[in-house]
C-alpha cells in the first residue's frame, strides 16, 4: 500500500486506473503501426543504409577512407564512441541509482531510458571495432587462451580496460532491462490475439506467471542488478576517460578526466533521454505518464551536471596555467584560440552557457525549449569530445607534425549512420516492446481512493493555483493539472 502525499502531486496524471495503464501501454504494441511511426522508421532505415555503406567502405578499403592522418589518428571515430557511451549513462543512472534512491518518478521513463542505454552502447561499440585497422582480428583484445605461446592481452592498456568496461556495462544493462520487461511481456502475451504474437511474447516472457514468489524474486533481482549497475555509472566513463588521461598527450594527460567525463556523460545522457521522451510521449500519447514534472526534473539534473562540466573546463585551464608546463599551456591556448577555436566555442556555448537557462522556470517547463536545449546539449557534448580528441592531437609536442583534421564523407556517413542505427532500434523497441514499465507504473498509481490522504492541489500550492480542480476529488477521477514546482 502506498502512501500518497496530499502535497506532492501524483507521478501519473489523468487519473489512470490499473486497467488504463495496461490499455495505454499495450495499445501501442497491439495496434497497427501508425503513419508517423512508419515515416520515422523509413528515415531511420535510410540512415541505417548510410551506415552500412560507410561500414562497407571502411572495412573493404581501409581506415584511409576516413579523414585521419599521421598526427590525428583518432577523430570522429572515438568522438562518436565517447559520445554514444556517454549518452548511455542516463539510462543506467535512471534505472539503477534512482531506484536505489527510491525516486519513484523514474518508473515511467526507466524502460525507455534503459533501452536508450543499450542502443547507445551498441552504437558506441561499433566504433572501437570499426576504427581498428584490422577489425577481423578484434578478438585479439580478449584475453583468450593462446595456443601459440604466452602472448596475451596487455593489461596495462586503457583500451583493454575499455573492452571490459563496455562489455560489462552492456551485459548488465541488457540483463537489467530484460528482467524488467518480463512481467510486461507476460501482460502482452496474455492479451495477444494472433498466434505469432502469442508465441513470440510467451517466448519473450519466459513463462512468467505473476505468482507472488515470482514478483518477490523480481524485486530482489531488480535491486541486486541496481546495486551492480550503480558502480558502472561511475566506472564506465571513468575508464573511457582513462583512454586519454593515461596518455602523454598534452590536453589528454589530465587527472580531472574521470569525474569530468562521468558528469559529462550524465549530462549528455539526460539530454538524449529528454530528446527521446519528448518525441515518444507525443507520438505514443503518453503525456500522462511522462509528465512535465519528469521533464523539469530531468532538466534540473542536466543543468547540474552541465555546471559540473563547466567547472571542469575552467579547472583544466587553471591547472594548465598552474602547472607551468609549456606544452600543456599551449594545448589549452590552442584549444581556445587556435584553428579549432570554433569547436571550442561551440562546446562552451552549448554545454556551459545554454543549460543555465534551466534556472528559468519557463524554460524548464516548456516542451519546445527543452527539446531545443536537449539537442543543443547533445551537439555541445559531441563537440566536447571532438575538442578533447582532435585539438589535443593536432598540435602536440613536435611542431613539425602539427596537422589539421577534416572529416571525409565516410566519417560523416558513419556518424549519421549510427544515428540511423540507434533510431531504427529505438523505433522497433517502441513499437514492439512496452515503452513504459507497466508493472512498476502501476505501483505508483493512487488506486485506493479511501485509503489515505488524497492529493489536494489547492493545499499543495502556496500561491493561487490556476486550475479548477475541486478539493477532495479522487485521484482516480480524470483531473487535469497545471504544473508547478
Amino acid at each position, binding site marked *: 500500500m502506498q502512501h500518497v502525499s496530499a502535497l506532492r502531486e501524483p507521478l501519473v496524471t489523468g487519473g489512470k486506473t490499473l486497467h488504463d495503464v495496461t490499455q495505454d501501454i499495450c495499445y501501442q504494441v497491439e495496434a497497427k503501426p501508425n503513419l508517423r511511426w512508419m515515416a520515422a522508421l523509413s528515415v531511420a532505415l535510410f540512415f541505417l543504409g548510410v551506415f552500412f555503406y560507410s561500414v562497407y567502405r571502411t572495412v573493404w578499403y581501409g581506415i584511409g577512407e576516413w579523414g*585521419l592522418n599521421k598526427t590525428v*589518428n583518432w577523430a570522429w571515430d572515438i568522438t562518436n564512441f565517447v559520445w554514444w557511451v556517454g549518452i548511455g549513462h542516463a539510462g543506467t543512472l535512471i534505472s539503477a541509482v534512482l531506484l536505489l534512491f527510491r525516486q519513484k518518478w523514474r518508473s515511467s521513463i526507466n524502460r525507455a531510458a534503459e533501452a536508450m542505454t543499450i542502443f547507445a552502447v551498441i552504437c558506441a561499440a561499433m566504433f572501437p571495432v570499426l576504427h*581498428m585497422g*584490422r577489425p577481423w582480428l578484434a578478438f585479439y583484445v580478449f584475453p583468450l587462451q593462446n595456443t601459440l605461446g604466452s602472448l596475451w592481452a*596487455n593489461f596495462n592498456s586503457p583500451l583493454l580496460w575499455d573492452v571490459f568496461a563496455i562489455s560489462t556495462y552492456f551485459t548488465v544493462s541488457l540483463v537489467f532491462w530484460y528482467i524488467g520487461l518480463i512481467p510486461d511481456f507476460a501482460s502482452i502475451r496474455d492479451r495477444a490475439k494472433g498466434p505469432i504474437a502469442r508465441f513470440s511474447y510467451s517466448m519473450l516472457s519466459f513463462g512468467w506467471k505473476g505468482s507472488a514468489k515470482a514478483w518477490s524474486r523480481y524485486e530482489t533481482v531488480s535491486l541486486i542488478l541496481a546495486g551492480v549497475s550503480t558502480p558502472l555509472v561511475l566506472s564506465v566513463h571513468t575508464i573511457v576517460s582513462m583512454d586519454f588521461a593515461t596518455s*602523454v598527450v598534452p590536453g589528454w594527460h589530465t587527472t580531472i578526466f574521470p569525474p569530468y567525463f562521468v558528469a559529462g556523460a550524465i549530462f549528455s545522457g539526460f539530454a538524449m533521454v529528454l530528446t527521446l521522451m519528448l518525441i515518444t510521449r507525443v507520438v505514443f500519447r503518453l503525456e500522462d505518464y511522462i509528465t512535465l514534472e519528469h521533464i523539469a526534473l530531468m532538466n534540473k539534473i542536466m543543468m547540474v551536471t552541465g555546471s559540473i562540466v563547466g567547472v571542469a573546463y575552467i579547472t583544466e585551464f587553471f591547472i594548465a596555467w598552474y602547472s607551468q608546463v609549456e606544452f600543456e599551456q599551449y594545448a589549452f591556448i590552442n584549444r581556445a584560440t587556435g584553428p579549432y577555436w570554433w569547436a571550442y566555442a561551440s562546446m562552451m556555448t552549448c554545454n556551459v552557457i545554454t543549460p543555465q537557462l534551466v534556472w528559468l522556470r519557463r524554460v524548464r517547463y516548456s516542451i519546445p525549449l527543452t527539446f531545443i536545449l536537449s539537442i543543443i546539449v547533445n551537439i555541445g557534448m559531441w563537440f566536447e569530445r571532438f575538442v578533447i580528441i582532435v585539438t589535443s592531437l593536432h598540435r602536440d609536442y613536435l611542431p613539425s607534425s602539427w596537422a589539421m583534421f577534416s572529416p571525409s564523407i565516410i566519417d560523416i556517413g558513419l556518424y549519421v549512420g549510427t544515428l540511423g542505427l540507434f533510431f531504427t532500434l529505438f523505433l522497433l523497441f517502441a513499437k514492439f516492446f512496452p515503452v513504459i514499465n507497466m508493472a512498476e507504473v502501476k505501483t505508483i498509481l493512487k488506486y485506493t481512493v479511501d485509503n489515505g490522504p488524497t492529493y489536494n492541489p489547492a493545499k499543495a500550492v502556496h500561491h493561487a493555483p490556476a486550475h479548477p480542480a475541486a478539493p477532495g476529488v479522487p485521484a482516480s477521477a480524470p483531473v487535469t493539472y497545471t504544473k508547478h514546482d
Partner: protein
Amino acid sequence: MKYWKGIEELESTPEFMQSAFAEFMPVKESHESKDATSAPRRDFLKLMGFGVAAATLASCETPVRKAIPYLNKPEEIDPTISNFYASTYFTGADYNAVLVKSREGRPIKLEGNPESPITQGGLSARAQAAVLSLYDGGRLQHFAIKKGSTHEKAEFAAFDSEVRGKLAGAGRIAIVSPTIISPSTKRAIAEFASRYPNTTHVMYDTQSVTGLLQANNGVVPGYDFGRANVIVSLGADFLGTWISPVEYARQYVRNRKVRNDKRSMSRHYQFETAMTLTGSNADIRVPVKPSEMGAVALALYNAVVGGGESSYSNAKLTQAANDLKASRGTGLVVSGSNDPAVQTLVAAINQALGNVGTTVDLNAPSYVRQGDDARMTALVNDMNNGSVGAVIFYNANPVFNHPLGAKVKSGIAKVPVTISLNDRLDETGILCQYAAPDSHWLESWNDFEPKRGFLSLSQPVITPLFQTRQAQESLLHWAGNNTTYYKYLRATWRALTPNDAAWDKVVHDGVATGTALPAAPAMMTAALSPAAAISQINSAPKANGNAVELALYEKVGIGAGGCEANNPFLQELPDPVSKATWGNYVAIPRAMAVANKWEQNDVVKVTGNGYSIELPVLIQPGQTNGTVSIALGYGRTLAGKAGDQVGANAAPFAMATANGIMYNNVVTLTKTDATSPIAQTQTHHTLMDRKPVVQENSLAAYIKNPKEVTEYEKIATPDGLEKPNKVSLWQDYQYNNHHWGMAVDLNSCIGCGSCVIGCQTENNIAVVGKQQVINRREMHWMRIDRYYSSKAHKTDFEEKGKVSTYAAMEDPSENPQVIFQPMMCQQCNHAPCETVCPVLATTHSSEGINQMTYNRCIGTRYCANNCPYKVRRFNWFSYYSNEKFETVNGHMFTDLGRMVLNPDVTVRARGVMEKCTFCVQRIQLGKLEAKKQKRRPVDGEIVTACAQSCPTEAIVFGDMRDPNSRISQLLRREDGERAFHALDSINVQPNVTYLTKIRNAESEFFGKEENA
C-alpha cells in the same frame, strides 16, 4: 610354413572359402534394397554428389607458384645471403661510388662505397633511389623503329643493319649526351667518329656550368670545403645539387663538426635567391636577386682585391670580405652562376686570396660537368637549318630539359636520321625514328673518371631485364666493331691494370687511381680577363626594380634534367627546405603574397620568354623579395606512370644567351581562379620556441663553455632539481647483451634527405602519392624536420601577451635561420606506445628496441596518438594491392617491381602500424655473422641504413653497452655538453641522442634572454 590371416582361414569354413578368393565381397542386401535397380541409383547420386564436391574443391585449389631451384648453384650466390658488388652511379649529375646489395641475383639496395676517396661512403638521395629505376616498368623493353606514329619492335640484327645503312649516308652526325666521364665510352664514341668521320659529340648539362668551365680553362676546379675556414657561396647549392654535392658535403662537415677539443668551425656565407639546402645550412645568408649576382661578385671582388666602385653594398658582404681577407689561403669562394663574368671574378678572388692550391685545386679538376652551352646552341641551330644528317641522343632529353626544347623538337623533324639511345620513349625519344634503349647502369659495364686521377667502375649485377643493349655497344656495333663492351672496356684498362689480379682488385673495390679520360674539347668561347668581366657586369642592362625575377633551380630529389621523374621514391622525397613533394611550384616571398593577396596553393600563371605555365604558389621564407623560384625537371609528359604530369616544365624560361644558359629571367605572374594544393609533409614551419624539441647555440657560446650550450630540463623533486629520469613510476629494463643507440649530430646534418630514401629502400616503405601526402599520410619512417626561426619569442609574453605571441611565433622570419632534425623512432626505454597497445603488438626488446609485431597489430592507432615524436605510420590502405596506388607505388604491384623489395622486411598489410625498427634485420644479420664466427659484433659492423650512407656521418649507430663503441665514446664525451634527448622532461628515455647544433653566428631561434 604357412601363416593364417585370420581365425576364419584357419578354420576354413565353407562360407569363408566361398568368398576367400573372390575379388569383391558379395553385396549384403539390406531389407530395403531388394530391388537391384535401386542401389545403383543411390550410388549414382552419391557418386555424383561426391564428384561435384570433389570437382569444386579441386577447382578451388590455390595456383601453385613454382620456386625453381638452381640446377647448378652459382658459387657466390647463397639463398638469403646478400652479396655486395662495387659499382658507380653517375647519370650526368652527381657522382657516387656505390655498393650494390644483391639478393639471389637481384639488386635490392645501394649503399655508399667507403673505399671511394671522393664520396667516402656517402650516397645522395638520388643515388639511393636509383635501384628502383632499374625495375621501372616505363623503360622501353626492346629496340624499336618508328613506323607511322608508333614505334614497332625490332630485332638487334635488322635494326643494326638498317641504322648502319642510314648512318653511312647521313653526312654530318651529332651525338648529344649529358656529360660523359667514362674513358671507355669516350673511346667508343671516338671509334664511332672515326668510322663516320663527320661526327661531332655535343655534351650539355641540364644545370650547366659553362661559365665556370670557361673561367677555369675548361675544367671544374677541385674544391675542398673541408680546408676552408670561410666559405662564401654566391648562389652555389653545393650541399644539395651543385656539381658534386656528396663530395662537397663530406668535406664541408669536416670543418663543421665541433667537440670539446676542437672548438672551431668554418663560417659559411651564402648569397642566393631561392632558399636552398646550402643556404639553409649557412651561418649567414643574404637574399639577393639573380640580376644582382654580378654586382655582388663585383663588390666582393672589389672588397677583396681592392679598388673599384660597386653598385651593391651590404654589411654582411663587407663582413664576408673581411673574413676572407683574414683567412687567406683558407677561404673559398664559389658561385653557382652560369655567367662567365661572375665566375671569372670568383676565380680571381680565389686567386687573389691565395686559395688556389689549398681549397681550390686546379690540378685535380672535376670532370662531372663538361657541357658547353654554345656548342649545344649551335647544334640546335644546325639541326633547324638542315645541315645535320643524323642525330643520336644518348641519355639526353633536350626536347624536355633544354631551354631550346621547342627548337630541338622542330630540329629533329628536319634531321633525316634520328636515333635515341634513351632508356625510354621520352619526349625526345618519341620523336626519333630509331630507339635503341640503353641498358640500366646496374646491367652494364662502365668506367668513370669523376675527378682527374680518380677512377671507378660499374659492373653488371643482373642480366639485362629487357631486350636492351648498352649504348656503347650499340655505337660500337654501328661503327663496325662487334666486340662486347666488357672486352672493349678491359682494353681501355689494360694500361691501368696490367694483370688480372689488378683488374680483379679494381672490380672488387670499385675504385682505382689513375687517369684515362681524354681531355674535353676546348670551350667555344674564350676565357675573360677580370677587367673584361668587370666591364661586362657593369654594362649589363639594369633590371627593372619592379619586375619579378624568376630563378630556376634544381631540386635535391628530381634533378634538373627530370630523368628521375618516374622514380616515385624521389617524387615523394620532401624537398629539404620547403618539404613539398610531387611537383614543382612557384616559391614566392611572403611580402609578394601579402602585396598581391595570394595564398599558398593559389595557382598563378607565370609568363616569360614567350612561354607560360600555371603552378601553385608556395610562400617560401628566405626567398628574395621581388623574386620567385621554380624547380626544373618537372612536368614530364612521357616519363612513365608515376612521373607524367607532375608539375610543369620550367626549362623554357631559362635564357640561352651568347654567354651560356642563364637560369633566371623576368616573368609576370597573374593569379588564376584555380587552386592546387601542394603536398607538403610539414605544414607548420616554426619551432614555437620549443627548446625541449631541438637545441642550438652559437659558436661563441660553445667556445666560452661547451657545458652551457645545451639547456637540460630539470624537474622538481624533494631533493631539489633533478634530471627527469631520476623520478620514474616504471621499472627499468635490464639490457644484458646489447643496448642499441643512435646519436645524431645536428651540426653535421645538412638535411639532404639521403637517409630518408635509404630507409625507404631498406624497409620496403610504400609510396603513397600526392593526395595521400596532402592528407598527411606519407609513410616515411625517417623524416627530417625543418624549422625556421621566427621573430617572435617567448620573451615577448609579458609585453604582448601569450595568445598573440604564440600566434606571431607561427610565422617564420623573412630570412630565417633553419635547423634540421632527423626524426625517427626514438626507441624509448619508457615507450608510451608500448603501454597503450591493447594486444601487445608493440613491445620492448631485450636490446632496447621498441619492436612492432605486425601480425599481432589490430590497428587501434593508440600508439601513434601517444607517440610524442609522431614517428609511427599507419597503413591506411593496402598500398600493395589497392588500385588507387598502382600509379605511385607500382613496384609493389608487378613481379618486375617486387624484385626490388627487401626480402628481409615484411611488406605491411593494410590496417597495421609500422615505424622505424633501427633496421632490426641488419642488427640480426650482424649478430648472426658474429655468432657464426664465435665473436662479439664489432663496432661499426652493424649500422642502420640511414647511418650507412649519410654523406656527412651525422648519424652514429652502435651498441651503448659496449664501452668502446663509437657511440659510447661520443655519448660520454658529449654528456653534459651537447648531448640531449628530444622532450627529455616527459621521461620517455629515448635511445636516440641529439647533439646541439652550433651555429657560427648569433642564433635567432630562441629569445635573447634564453640565449644568454
